[in-house]
């Protein structure tokens, strides 16, 4: 009876640095039938106990990456290890040590809240007694203690989302994969979820989260990879990524007309590092905000340019993303 789906692993397929890294990919690639290169030669390392984020717009390849790491998407090239096991050749062992929350509500509708947790534990090899006590514990953790006998459909959306995450933890995984966990959740629910995730991380769980909310990435993740078109554009802590923007102030301007002459005037202002068009908007990166706005206004008046909107902000992950790709995260 064959229990692996891939070819037998050669000896050299043992995981690189598996003591330090929980997730490793090497040249990981997925080309879908039809030619879409969703993930392109991805090299990624997520350290043990790390809260790691994949940040990028829709279609960047985040979900495909998580799909491959969790055995649901078959890669077309490269290799990957989770917890030291080769995902291609040992999918069953990998599934045993990971918890997965996908973008879909996959709760078992024919079971109660408590039974969802209990049978999940059973699938993952917990004994009846272990699974029972774990289901009790998790139900309290996700604050659904009073709903233990409720069928899934009788729970609110937020409760179902909490149960989903609780279920992914019911077999005490080494790594938790969360694919856009807060999409479609109200702001209050999002913050409650962030608290739960921070708590789990503080207990030593390795977490890989995908998101296109930069606030979420900034709030939760120790390190981030910014992804677009299946490639990693930058990797580092939120602070390191923001330091890549040398400027301390970003001013975005909506002006008519945004003429070349006006842009040239802006570039000549003191303290300005760069001026670039981002779609309709002019983006000015500067070392200081002091005196900058009056100077911009004066330059505009001199060229008879009308300023319809001016926005001043400190560099954010959003500006890092725009600088790297020329696009916004949510277009």
């Amino acid at each position: 009876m064959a229990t692996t789906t891939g070819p037998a692993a050669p000896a050299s397929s043992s995981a690189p640095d598996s003591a330090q890294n929980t997730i490793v990919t090497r040249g990981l690639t997925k080309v879908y039938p039809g030619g879409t290169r969703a993930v392109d030669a991805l090299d990624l390392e997520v350290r043990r106990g790390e809260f790691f984020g994949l940040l990028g717009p829709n279609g960047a390849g985040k979900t495909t990456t998580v799909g491959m790491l969790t055995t649901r998407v078959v890669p077309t090239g490269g290799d990957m290890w989770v917890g030291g096991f080769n995902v291609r050749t040992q999918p069953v062992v990998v599934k045993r040590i990971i918890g997965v929350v996908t973008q879909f509500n996959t709760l078992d509708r024919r079971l109660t809240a408590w039974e969802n947790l209990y049978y999940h534990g059973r699938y993952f090899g917990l004994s009846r007694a272990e699974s029972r006590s774990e289901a009790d514990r998790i139900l309290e953790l996700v604050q659904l203690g009073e709903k233990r006998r409720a069928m899934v459909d009788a729970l609110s959306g937020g409760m179902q989302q909490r149960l989903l995450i609780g279920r992914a933890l019911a077999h005490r995984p080494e790594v938790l994969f969360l694919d856009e966990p807060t999409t479609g959740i109200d702001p209050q629910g999002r913050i409650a979820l962030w608290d739960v995730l921070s708590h789990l991380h503080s207990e030593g769980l390795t977490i890989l989260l995908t998101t296109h909310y930069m606030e979420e990435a900034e709030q939760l993740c120790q390190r981030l990879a910014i992804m677009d078109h299946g490639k990693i554009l930058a990797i580092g802590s939120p602070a390191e990524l923001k330091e890549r923007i040398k400027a301390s102030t970003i001013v975005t301007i909506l002006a008519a007309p945004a003429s070349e002459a006006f842009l040239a005037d802006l570039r000549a202002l003191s303290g300005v590092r760069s001026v670039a068009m981002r779609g309709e908007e002019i983006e000015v990166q500067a070392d200081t905000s002091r005196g900058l706005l009056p100077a911009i206004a004066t330059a505009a008046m001199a060229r008879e340019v009308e300023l319809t909107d001016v926005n001043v902000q400190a560099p954010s992950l959003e500006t890092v993303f725009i600088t790297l790709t020329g696009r916004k995260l949510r277009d």
Partner: protein
Amino acid sequence: MTAETRQAASGSLAISLVTFRALMERDLKVLSREFVPFLARTAIQPFLFVFVFAYVQPKIGQRSANFGDILVPGLIASAVVLQGIQAVAIPLVTEFSQTKEIEDRVMAPLPVWGVAAEKIVFAMLQALIAAAAVVPFVYFVPLERPHVHISPLVLFTILPLGALLSASVGLLIGTSVSPRQIPLVFALLVVPLTFLGAVYYPWSSLEVIRWLQVATLANPLLYMSEGLRGALTPSYGHMNYFGVYAGMIIGCIASTYLGVRGFIRRVQS
């Protein structure tokens, strides 16, 4: 295989077996909760059939009293087929589309084909329960007690083969149609299969409608009805056992292969 992968593979096997058993446990829990409706759903149609055709009609002189003999193997076979197909196809279609639950089952630690295999095995169990549920009706309801001579060896090989065949056809249907198409598939495929599967007449008696006799060879249910006819009411004549077993084994292999392949393609991209 290196020693390392061999060890991982045997670890995988042990993990997978535990998971398989737990999936069965979950399905048993759900079935036990819905057992009475399940029995009612399974038994009502066969009951009405024997009541009308083997009790009412003979009683009012519209039909000969031995029709009950014909219905014994036929209704058991059609119960197995209907239940085997439904037990996989209907929940699976929902799990694939509306609820996406299948993603959860697929993340359980066993190979993807193991999830499909569990669905087949559990549907086989339901098909066999359905067969047992029909037995009292086909035996006690007719005006005359049916003349039954049981061949245990044939009976207890045909029933599991028939259950496997039906469950794997159910897997094939469940992985290849959308929820909207399900009523249509049952109306246009499953109902004709049961009507034309030698349920209400022995296949050998079709000699006078030769084209139908040949055409129904494509119906997998035919082989089970005929096999059960041999196992229960041999005096009415039945297809020879070589044909019966060949038809069932080929049908099982083809539908299991296609069903499991379809399932894997559907859940992995």
